[in-house]
């Protein structure tokens, strides 16, 4: 593909649909003898179908009495507080099981048909139980919500409607196009269909790292995984020692030995990747671009050399380029000059030709990138809008923004 003269659609921000908050509603629940089960179910189905609550199981075993079952008779308005949503999905313990939320209920509050049914089948212990008002969207929600009242787990339909896709402004579009072109070019040069480029938006002249897909050689070396690796090698090359990062200094005397051993191990660990890269004979496929020193053209090469050398802090400091002129970075640097090297890919933008799979999307979460921009959506496996929306997952410790910058469709 002649990637230099491709035209793009306007990039849009791919909305992160929020995870559902738990909303509960009051259910009139009564206990019946087990033997009433089948007849009761049929009767309930015709007298009081719960069309909107298909996710809730109609009956369950009574938790504390094996000879009884409990059934939902109907939904009721309760008099006091209403549906204060239990807090989020992450805290499974936040919603207590029913005993504390239950209250005795007078049969007179039921519709007449249900009152009759209640009496006829030997109903007892009529009470209110709060159950989830809508079906959970994730397994974890199910785990938490089903404790209120049992829920049938069904994998939700993928691709729940997107709320709104907002276009980016002109300078952003220009910046996006420039680096997406580079990613497309890289892929085409390497003869593969995916490549990724990491850019520090505060120093966008040259990318931090770039890599083409290498999954033909290494099954997990997707473009994103490769570019994250390349960025870490650049980091090790530019800031070879941990000494400037404070942790080692605070660690006490002997720890250095352990760290040094670890360094050997890290070098050994990176070895096979270097070897693979050597085989490829294609220096364009993977490269990191340090702003000084030699080009770290090979996978893992940077990890071995300098780690044991005991580098001079001041010298390092003078070589260290200013990262991000943003106020946040500036403040951090002023407060703690020792911690000024980047923390993995914090603040970077990742341009990738194809919408990342779930492994790559999560790798970018671990790497703390700021934005992910992709060109070709993947409805089957894409994890950032295709079949999943990982950036909507609020339980993660980091979230990034996601943009789609598609090629212009022929008119």
């Amino acid at each position, binding site marked *: 593909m002649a990637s230099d003269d491709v035209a793009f659609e306007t990039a849009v921000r791919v909305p992160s649909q929020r995870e559902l908050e738990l909303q509960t509603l009051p259910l009139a629940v009564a206990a019946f003898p087990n033997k009433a089960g089948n007849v009761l179910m049929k009767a309930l189905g015709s007298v009081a179908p719960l069309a909107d609550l298909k996710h809730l199981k109609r009956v369950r075993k009574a938790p504390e009495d094996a000879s009884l079952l409990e059934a939902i008779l109907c939904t009721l308005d309760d008099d006091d507080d209403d549906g204060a949503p239990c807090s989020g999905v992450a805290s499974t313990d936040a919603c207590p099981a029913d005993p504390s939320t239950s209250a005795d209920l007078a049969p007179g509050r039921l519709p007449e048909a249900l009152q009759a049914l209640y009496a006829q089948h030997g109903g007892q212990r009529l009470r209110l139980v709060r159950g989830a008002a809508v079906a959970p969207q994730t397994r974890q929600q199910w785990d938490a919500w089903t404790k209120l009242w049992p829920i049938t787990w069904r994998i939700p339909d993928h691709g729940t409607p997107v709320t709104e896709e907002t276009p980016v402004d002109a300078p952003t579009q220009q910046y996006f196009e420039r680096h997406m072109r580079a990613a497309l070019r890289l892929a085409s040069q390497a003869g593969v269909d995916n490549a990724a480029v990491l850019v520090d938006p505060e120093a966008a002249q040259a990318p931090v790292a770039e890599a083409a897909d290498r*999954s033909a050689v290494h099954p997990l070396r997707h473009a994103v995984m490769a570019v994250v690796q390349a960025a870490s090698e650049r980091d090790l090359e530019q800031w070879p020692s941990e000494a400037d990062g404070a942790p080692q200094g605070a660690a006490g005397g002997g720890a250095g030995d352990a760290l040094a051993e670890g360094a050997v191990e890290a070098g050994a660990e990176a070895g096979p990747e270097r070897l693979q890269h050597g085989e490829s004979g294609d220096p364009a496929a993977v490269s990191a671009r340090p702003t000084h020193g030699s080009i770290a053209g090979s996978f893992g090469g940077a990890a071995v050399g300098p780690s044991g050398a005991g580098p001079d802090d001041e010298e390092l400091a003078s070589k260290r380029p200013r990262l991000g002129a943003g106020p946040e970075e500036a403040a951090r640097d002023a407060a703690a000059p020792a911690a000024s090297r980047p923390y993995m890919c914090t603040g970077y933008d990742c341009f990738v030709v*194809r919408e990342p799979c779930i492994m790559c999307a999560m790798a970018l979460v671990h790497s703390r990138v700021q934005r992910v921009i992709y060109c070709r959506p993947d409805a089957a496996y894409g994890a950032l809008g295709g079949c999943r929306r990982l950036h909507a997952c609020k*339980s993660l410790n980091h979230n990034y923004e996601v943009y789609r910058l598609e090629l212009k469709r022929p008119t």
Partner: protein
Amino acid sequence: MGFPDRKVYEIMSSAPPSLPDEVSTSHARNQGWTELQVDYMCQAIAQAHEAWACREVPVGCVVVRDGKVVGRGHNLTNRTRNGTRHAEMIAIDRMLAECGGSVQEAGFDRCDLYVTVEPCIMCAGALSLLGFRQVFYGCGNDRFGGCGSILPVNQEGCGPCASQAPSGSHAGRGFPAKGGLFPEEAVELLREFYAAGNPCAPRPHRPVRREA
């Protein structure tokens, strides 16, 4: 494999939590775990201890193929400055290295993984792509878990990030995963580690303070 040996512990300011004792191993057996499974997970915990000793997030794993431990690893995210170098990824890359990069020879689809913490979403994706046969883990992972805690990647599988999956890829395939083998030990290691502060976490996280 060049791991720091046990003497490293002596220079650490405090000892890591201990390996599973008689009580907890017999408890695991009573829960239906086999002698071998208990042994494999103890080896995974030993890997987590190695991580602890070199100030890495203490998660460890072993890979078992045909009844033999053929791979080991622990987190190396701090050392490599790469947030994706989790125990599983390290073990996988070592196995590949020993097989000269041949996925076929590594035979991941005949492998079981024993890992102290539920694989994260990324690692679950990787395990899916390689077609791991089965995964056993210690404690669940409420922030990143990819085997049901956050996302059921082990049921849904992972995509290839390419228009065509390379040959030998198991894209889209899931794997059975079962937790609960020595969860307390796994959690205890993490708690000890984070109580001291991850030495490489960014500021404004609290800094490491250890008494020499």
